[in-house]
């Protein structure tokens, strides 16, 4: 039955060559797309010592210790693979040169000498959660997270507000100069900010916004994509509704926020998702504007840590996972919404 389900294909025919190729391709794709992400997620739970191991183990493993009677500290366990004690699991008391002084946990009275080449450490699955906790204790992760969150949330709110107001004006009023304004805004779609890095930097620095989150927020909020997207949607809202509201004593401002804005919710949601994605992931512009590490976003912090030699991979990996987590959660919840929204509007 399950096989019949798997072999469901476009035609009514058998499971033919194209179906085999399809499945081979898809499984390879899952491996290539998710493999690296899974790998970094697993690695982020390994201790620094385990990360140095080569070849690496698949799962995060840590040496096993045991408390043995007569010893205050927990002792590390080893499996003996050669010599007279082969097959036993012994605890090491100390190591002297090539010889490990060990005891049998079941019989802790006698010390046993074992050649260190005759034993391998006992290891068990263990998550090095300290990779994550130390981010908050030693690496100011909370600050970077807050910086990123602040920029993302504030920029998104302003983007949605300003873009929707402009879109409302451009879709629902017939005023002189409307076409000119619209064409001007659309024309800026052709000039991505990457071309104007230097003059934008001048403007931002003259406004005293270098090393301030606002230096990242303000240049980003007047997105032509957002105006265009919302305008196209608002054009589909019947003008009669606006007239009805005007007959109901609503001011133009009230028409905007009580009628048009709630009715544009689907388009607003798409813009919110885009804006969150843009701002959370933005790299080049914050790199230029934010030079002080207290102002770093998560992306900048990640980048600067990976350049520092003394940064431990264990912390870097954990930080990477924490950075991709919010977007991943949003995607997991809104997956269908995001994919259809992007497919329809064709923007990223």
């Amino acid at each position, binding site marked *: 039955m399950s096989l019949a389900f798997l072999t469901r*294909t*476009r035609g009514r025919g058998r499971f033919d060559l194209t179906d085999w190729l*399809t499945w081979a*391709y*898809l499984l390879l*794709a899952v491996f*290539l*797309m*998710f493999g*690296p*992400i899974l*790998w970094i997620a697993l690695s982020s739970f390994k201790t620094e010592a385990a990360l140095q191991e*080569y*070849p*690496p183990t698949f799962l995060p493993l840590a040496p096993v210790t045991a408390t043995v009677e007569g010893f205050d500290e927990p002792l590390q366990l080893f499996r003996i693979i050669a010599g007279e004690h082969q097959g036993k699991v012994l605890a090491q008391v100390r190591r002297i040169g090539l010889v490990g002084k060990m005891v049998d946990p079941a019989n802790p009275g006698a010390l046993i000498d074992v050649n260190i080449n005759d034993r391998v450490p006992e290891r068990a699955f263990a998550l090095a959660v300290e990779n994550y906790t130390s981010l908050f204790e030693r690496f100011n992760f909370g600050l970077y997270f807050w910086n990123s969150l602040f920029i993302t949330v504030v920029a998104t709110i302003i983007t949605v507000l*300003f873009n929707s*107001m*402009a879109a*409302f*004006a*451009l879709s629902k*009023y*017939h005023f002189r100069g409307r076409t000119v304004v619209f064409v001007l*805004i659309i024309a800026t779609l*052709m*000039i*991505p900010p*990457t*071309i*104007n*890095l*230097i*003059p*934008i*930097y*001048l*403007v931002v620095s003259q406004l005293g916004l270098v090393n301030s989150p606002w230096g990242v927020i*303000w*240049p980003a909020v*007047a997105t032509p994509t957002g105006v265009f997207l919302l305008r196209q949607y608002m054009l589909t809202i019947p003008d009669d509704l606006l007239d009805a509201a005007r007959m109901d004593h609503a*001011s*133009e*401002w*009230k028409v905007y926020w009580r009628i048009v804005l709630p009715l544009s919710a689907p388009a607003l949601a798409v813009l919110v998702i885009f804006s969150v994605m843009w701002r*959370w*992931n933005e790299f*080049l512009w914050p790199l*230029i504007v934010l030079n002080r590490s207290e102002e770093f976003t998560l*992306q900048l912090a990640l980048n600067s840590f990976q350049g520092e030699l003394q940064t431990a991979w264990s912390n870097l990996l954990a930080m*990477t996972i924490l*950075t*991709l987590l919010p*977007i*991943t959660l949003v*995607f997991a919840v809104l*997956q*269908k919404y995001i*994919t259809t929204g992007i497919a329809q509007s*064709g923007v*990223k």
Partner: protein
Amino acid sequence: MQSALDTIGRGVGRLYAAAFDLLEWPMLALQRLTGAQRIAWIFLLPNLVIFGTFTFLPIILNFFYATSGSDAILLQDRPYVGLDNFATLLACENYLQPNSCERDIFWRAVHNTAWFVVLQVGFMILFSLVTALILNRDIPFRGFFRSVFFYPVLLSPVVVALIWKWVLQRFGVLNAALEGAGMPTVNWLVDADWAFFWIVFVSIWAHMGFYTLILLAGLQSIPSDVYEAAEMDGASKWRVFSRITMPLLMPTMAVVIVLSLIRAVQAFDEIFVLTGGGPGSATLLILQFIYETGFAYQPRLYGLAAAASMLMAVVLLVLTLVQLRATRSRAEG
């Protein structure tokens, strides 16, 4: 649970109403002043101010930077140098030989970018098309597979770069796997050719889901009765693909190609974090050259960087005009 959600919903609704109600009186006063039609300008104002400050003004200022010298950021401190910056960038004995140019690093970036654009766009479109065709089949778990391809699109470039850096490092999992299979290992990001291969690969990995999604939407917009008619006409699978699917997909395809070209010309983030442009300048692309010339290295050569951006702008402008044409024909088609 339900009532808790309701309470939250009502709370959000009240907050929303209270926030917008604050502006009711000022906006009403403005409306009395402007009349019901010209109030549109008030609605446009915030967006236009931001546009003017951070888009229109910089476009004009860019010309001044490109035609002036020194490392001063203030325009009044910068001497006018005419087209010197462009002349410096374009001084070259043989454009195919970066070493023969005055700014050899710029031309190396141009060469790298050209190769990058051709390879990245070419292979990405190919894989996206194949993937879209496969996802358009009636296979189980289609939504899941679509998400598999799309998920990396949402990841930040820095995260993408770090994921692959970890896989590709000297003692990383890829080399371990190769060694396990008895094959020689490579120091992937230190070998110039391999490093270039990987920046192309990683940027395809990160972005193909987006184009797959658009192509898939294009495929799904082809009415099924066309396929049924072809089936009645006894067309083979290959003929259906080459004579029906591809021609009807062409408008979407054009949009996808131009969009990906525009993005590829401006590639920077993942590559900067993954290789930093190295080894040497093997993976240095134009935008990184602009960034480093203008912001990272001392003295900051703003003029040269602005001139380089304007040259890039010309390329982008041409590509965008092509895109607009393509989009229009899609809208009309």
